[in-house]
C-alpha cells in the first residue's frame, strides 16, 4: 500500500508540475504574434551542406490508389538529392481539408502541399500563403516547364497559376456488359443520345434489372453534373447562375428535372433515397445494375470487386442538344504548392523546388493513373500493364472532343452541400428545382 501511495504521489507531483507549467504558458492568447519571426532565422549565409528536411502534405495517403506511386517517387527524390521528405499525407476528405486550412491559419503549414486548385484554395491565395509559379520561375525558369501553362489550373481568385498538377481526372459512364447483353441492349457509342439512353433504361427495367446504380441521397453529384451539362455545352458549362430565372439557372433547373424524370420512371434502385453509395454500387459488381456515372478514381474499385473485369467498360455519358456525348467532364483539380513560409526559408527554397520538379516529371506523372487528360506537353505514356477497363478509359479520354471542369467545384462547400442534400427533395416533389437553386445561391 505504501508503495502505491508513494507512486501516486509521485505521479501527482508530475501532474501538478505539468499543470503549473501550463498555467504559466497560457498567456500567448493570440498565437499569430509569435509565428512569423521564427522560420526565417536559420543560417542566411550557408544555405548548402547537409540534408534538408522538407515537410510535405499530400492527399496520396490512406486509401489513395496512387499512394504506392507517390511513395516510390518521393523515395527516388530522397535518394537522388540526399534530402529528407517528412511526409504527412492523408486521405482527402473534409476533415483533411479542415486540418490543412487550420495549419495555414495557425502558421504550422507544411513546406510543400498537394491540394485542390479550385475554390477550396481561395483562402491560401488570398492570404498570400503560397507562392505563384511566375515568382518561382523568376528564379528557377525550368519550373513546371514540361506542362502547358493553360492547363495548370489557375486560381479562381486572380487567374494566376500557383500549383503544378499531376494526374488529371475524368468522369464517364461505367457499363455492366453482362447486363446489357442479357437485355439485348447495345453498348453505348460516341454518338449515343439521351433518348436512346431513356429507351435502353426502359428495356433494362422491364427485364428486371436496375438501369442506374446511384444513391441519390448520398452521391447524386455525377448525375447533377451531366444532366446540367446536357442543357448547355462545353463552352458555357462552367457558368454559375445568378438566379433560377436567368439563362444558366433555367439550364440548371432543366437538368435537375431530368434527374426527377429518371427517378419517377423508376430507373434508380428502389432504395436510392435510403441506400448508401457503396450499397448501390455493389449492384454493379453483382450484375444487377447496368449503368453508373463515376470518376477515374473508381477504376480501382472495379479492379478489386469485379468477378471479371472484362464484363465492364467505361463510355461517354449520353449527350443532348449542344453537348455531344464526347464532351466530357475532366481536368486537373489538384496540384503541388510551395508555401510562402518554405520559399522565404533560404535553406528549404531550393529543396522544395527540386522536390516539386522531381514529382512532376513526365515519367512520374505517367505512372499516376490511366488518363489522357494531362497538362504534360508531351502527353502521358500509357502504362505497361493494362486491362480492358483501363484501355476503355484511355480510348475514351483520347476521343474526347471537349473537356471541362465540374461546375459544382465552383460552388462553396456549404452551397454544394445544400444542393446535393436537396436533390432527394426535388425528385420526390417536396420542393421545385427553382426553389433549391435560389436557396443554394443565397448561401454566402
Amino acid at each position, binding site marked *: 500500500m505504501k508503495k502505491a501511495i508513494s507512486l501516486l504521489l509521485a505521479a501527482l507531483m508530475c501532474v501538478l508540475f505539468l499543470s503549473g507549467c501550463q*498555467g504559466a504558458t497560457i498567456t500567448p492568447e493570440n498565437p499569430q504574434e509569435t509565428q512569423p519571426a521564427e522560420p526565417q532565422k536559420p543560417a542566411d549565409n550557408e544555405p548548402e551542406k547537409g540534408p534538408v528536411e522538407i515537410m510535405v502534405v499530400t492527399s496520396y495517403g490512406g486509401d489513395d490508389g496512387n499512394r504506392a506511386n507517390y511513395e516510390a517517387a518521393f523515395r527516388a527524390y530522397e535518394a537522388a538529392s540526399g534530402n529528407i521528405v517528412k511526409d504527412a499525407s492523408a486521405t482527402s476528405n*473534409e476533415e483533411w481539408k479542415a486540418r490543412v486550412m487550420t495549419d495555414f*491559419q495557425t502558421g504550422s503549414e507544411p513546406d510543400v502541399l498537394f491540394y485542390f486548385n479550385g475554390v477550396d484554395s481561395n*483562402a491560401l491565395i488570398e492570404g498570400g500563403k503560397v507562392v505563384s509559379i511566375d515568382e518561382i520561375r523568376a528564379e528557377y525558369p525550368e519550373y513546371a516547364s514540361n506542362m502547358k501553362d493553360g492547363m495548370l489550373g489557375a486560381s479562381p481568385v486572380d487567374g494566376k497559376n500557383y500549383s503544378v498538377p499531376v494526374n488529371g481526372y475524368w468522369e464517364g459512364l461505367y457499363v455492366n456488359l453482362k447486363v446489357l447483353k442479357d437485355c439485348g441492349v447495345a453498348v453505348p457509342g460516341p454518338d449515343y443520345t439521351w433518348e436512346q439512353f431513356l429507351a435502353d433504361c426502359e428495356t433494362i427495367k422491364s427485364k428486371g434489372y436496375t438501369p442506374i446504380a446511384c444513391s441519390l*441521397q448520398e452521391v447524386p453529384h455525377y448525375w447533377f453534373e451531366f444532366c446540367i451539362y446536357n442543357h448547355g455545352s462545353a463552352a458555357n458549362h462552367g457558368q454559375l447562375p445568378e438566379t433560377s430565372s436567368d439563362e444558366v439557372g433555367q439550364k440548371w433547373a432543366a437538368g435537375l428535372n431530368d434527374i426527377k424524370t429518371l427517378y419517377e420512371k423508376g430507373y434508380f434502385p428502389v432504395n436510392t433515397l*435510403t441506400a448508401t453509395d457503396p450499397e448501390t454500387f455493389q449492384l454493379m459488381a453483382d450484375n444487377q445494375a447496368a449503368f453508373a456515372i463515376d470518376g477515374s478514381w473508381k477504376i480501382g474499385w472495379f479492379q478489386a470487386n469485379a468477378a471479371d473485369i472484362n464484363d465492364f467498360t467505361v463510355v461517354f455519358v449520353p449527350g443532348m442538344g449542344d453537348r455531344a456525348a464526347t464532351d466530357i467532364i475532366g481536368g486537373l483539380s489538384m496540384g503541388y504548392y510551395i508555401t510562402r513560409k518554405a520559399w522565404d526559408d533560404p535553406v528549404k527554397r531550393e529543396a522544395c523546388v527540386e522536390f516539386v520538379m522531381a514529382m512532376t516529371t513526365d515519367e512520374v506523372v505517367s505512372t499516376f493513373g490511366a488518363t489522357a487528360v494531362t497538362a504534360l506537353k508531351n502527353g502521358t505514356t500509357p502504362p505497361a500493364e493494362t486491362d480492358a477497363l483501363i484501355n476503355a478509359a484511355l480510348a475514351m479520354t483520347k476521343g474526347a472532343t471537349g473537356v471541362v471542369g465540374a461546375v459544382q467545384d465552383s460552388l462553396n462547400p*456549404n452551397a454544394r*452541400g445544400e444542393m446535393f442534400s436537396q436533390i*432527394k427533395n426535388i425528385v420526390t416533389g417536396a420542393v421545385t428545382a427553382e426553389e433549391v437553386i435560389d436557396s443554394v445561391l443565397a448561401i454566402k
Partner: protein
Amino acid sequence: MNSTIYKRKFPLIIFLVPAFLFMAVFLYYPFIMNIINSISNISDLGAPANGMNQPWYQNYIRMFEDPLMATAVKNTLILMGATIVFQVGTALLLALLVDRIRKGSQFFRTVYFFPIVISATALGLLFNLVFLYNGGMLNQLRAAFGAAQYIDWKGEAHFMFTMLAPVMWQYVGFYFVIIVTGLNNISTEVYEAAELDGACCLKRVRYITLPLLRNVLCTCLVLAVTGALKVFDLPWVMMGAGIPMDKSWLTGTYMYNQTFLRHDVDYSSAIAIVIVVLGVVISKIANTVFKEKDY
C-alpha cells in the same frame, strides 16, 4: 456531509484546482472561443472572423427556423428517453441478475463489455450487413420464412428502430459496468442483515438495493442525458446524412455535418452551444425529479 472533519477548507484547493485547471484550459477556453464564433461571421473552417454577424444573434434565429434542427432535437429527445428506459433499464436488470448469481458472473461481466470495445466503424459495418436491403441478414431471414418482399430498414417506416437498436445495444454494457461497480460498493453485511430479516428477492431489491444505488442511478441518468446529445459515430456510420429524407438527424450528427461538410463554422458553433444548454437544463430537471422521488 456535514462532518466536522471537512470544515477546514484548505485541502479543497489541492483537490479541485488541478482538474478544474485542465478543464478551464482545454475545454472552457476553446468553448468561449466557440461562443464568440457563434456570433461572428466566419467564411471557412479555421478562417478568422470577418466581424460580427448582423444581428449578432442571427444564427440562433436561423436555428429556430431550421426544420432539420427541429428534427435533430426531436430525435435526440427520443434517443434520450430510449436510453434511459432501455439502456439503463436493461443494464440495471442485468446487473441485479449478475449480482445474485455466483457461477459465471465473471464471464458475464467480461462479455457484456465487448460491444463498447469494438470501434464504431466495425460495428457500423456489422449492422449495415444486418440491415442491408439487398441480402442483409434480416431480409434473408424474412425471405427464409416466406416473406415476398424485402423491407427497407432504413426507409421511413423503420429508420428509428434501425438507428436506435444498435446504439441501445452498444451502450448497455457501459451502464452495466457502472451499476455493477455501484453494487460492489454496497457492503455484503447489509444484505446479510436483510436476509436475517427475511427480506428476499424483489423486496430486497426494492427496499435495499435500489435506495442504496440511487446515487449511481442518478449518475447514469446524467450520463444518459448528456450521452444522447453527443451520440455521433454509430448513427453517422449507419444513417449518414439523415437517411431517410433528412428524418434521422441527431444533434451530434447535425453539428458535425454543419462543421466539416458544410464548413458553416459560426452556425455549427451556435448548435454546439444549444447542445450544451439543452444538456444542462435537461439533466438539472431530471436530477430534481429523480431526487424528489422517495423510496
